[in-house]
């Protein structure tokens, strides 16, 4: 069965600092991986997605993520965090193109201090 672990429930950074949110996945095979963000009182929105190919994928608002098969990881990064990035970030894995099931991690709350 597929699973996702986000080891950090909360991360606090200063505005302008760099950011890494960790994601570890478990799936036997080649996964399809996603990062979603949930801003306060809004629905989840797609930040970026990985399909088999280039391990570094670019997303919206300066976010990027790197897939590592050897580490079973898909960490999210941003070079300079803005206060508007304060939100909950979810990593998710889908096992193949024909399943509807998207397995989410429990999310990481990102707090940004001025």
């Amino acid at each position, binding site marked *: 069965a597929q699973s996702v672990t986000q080891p950090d429930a909360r991360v606090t950074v200063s505005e302008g600092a760099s950011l890494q949110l960790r994601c570890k996945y478990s799936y036997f095979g080649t996964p*399809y991986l*996603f990062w*979603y963000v949930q801003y306060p*009182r*809004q*629905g*989840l*929105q*797609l930040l970026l*997605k990985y*399909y088999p190919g280039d391990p570094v994928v670019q997303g919206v608002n300066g976010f990027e993520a790197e897939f590592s098969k050897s580490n079973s990881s898909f960490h999210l990064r941003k070079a300079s965090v803005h206060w508007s990035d304060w939100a909950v970030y*979810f990593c998710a894995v*889908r096992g193949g*193109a*024909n*399943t*509807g*099931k*998207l397995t*989410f*991690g*429990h*999310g990481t709350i990102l707090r940004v201090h001025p």
Partner: protein
Amino acid sequence: DAGVTQTPRHEVAEKGQTIILKCEPVSGHNDLFWYRQTKIQGLELLSYFRSKSLMEDGGAFKDRFKAEMLNSSFSTLKIQPTEPKDSAVYLCASSRDWGCTGQLYFGEGSKLTVL
């Protein structure tokens, strides 16, 4: 284009009641999903429809949860009878072509409180 619309945004029910949550997917999207979001369990898949056909359902939710797609632009999630443990945010999402794009568009959710 309008996004995914969910109603009601908030619902309070007594234990044992029947509640119906509604979802209108993005126009033209063929795939529709229902998820439940709680702090403890996170996001759990309840149902997945493709072109109005039920493709997957969350096994643990079969007995009291029933999702239907009455037409390509409207879906309902019925919980009958409700229990306090059903208190959660219920999210509806749609996708134009889930198999290719893998991108879901989520609604803002319906927050259910069962007393």
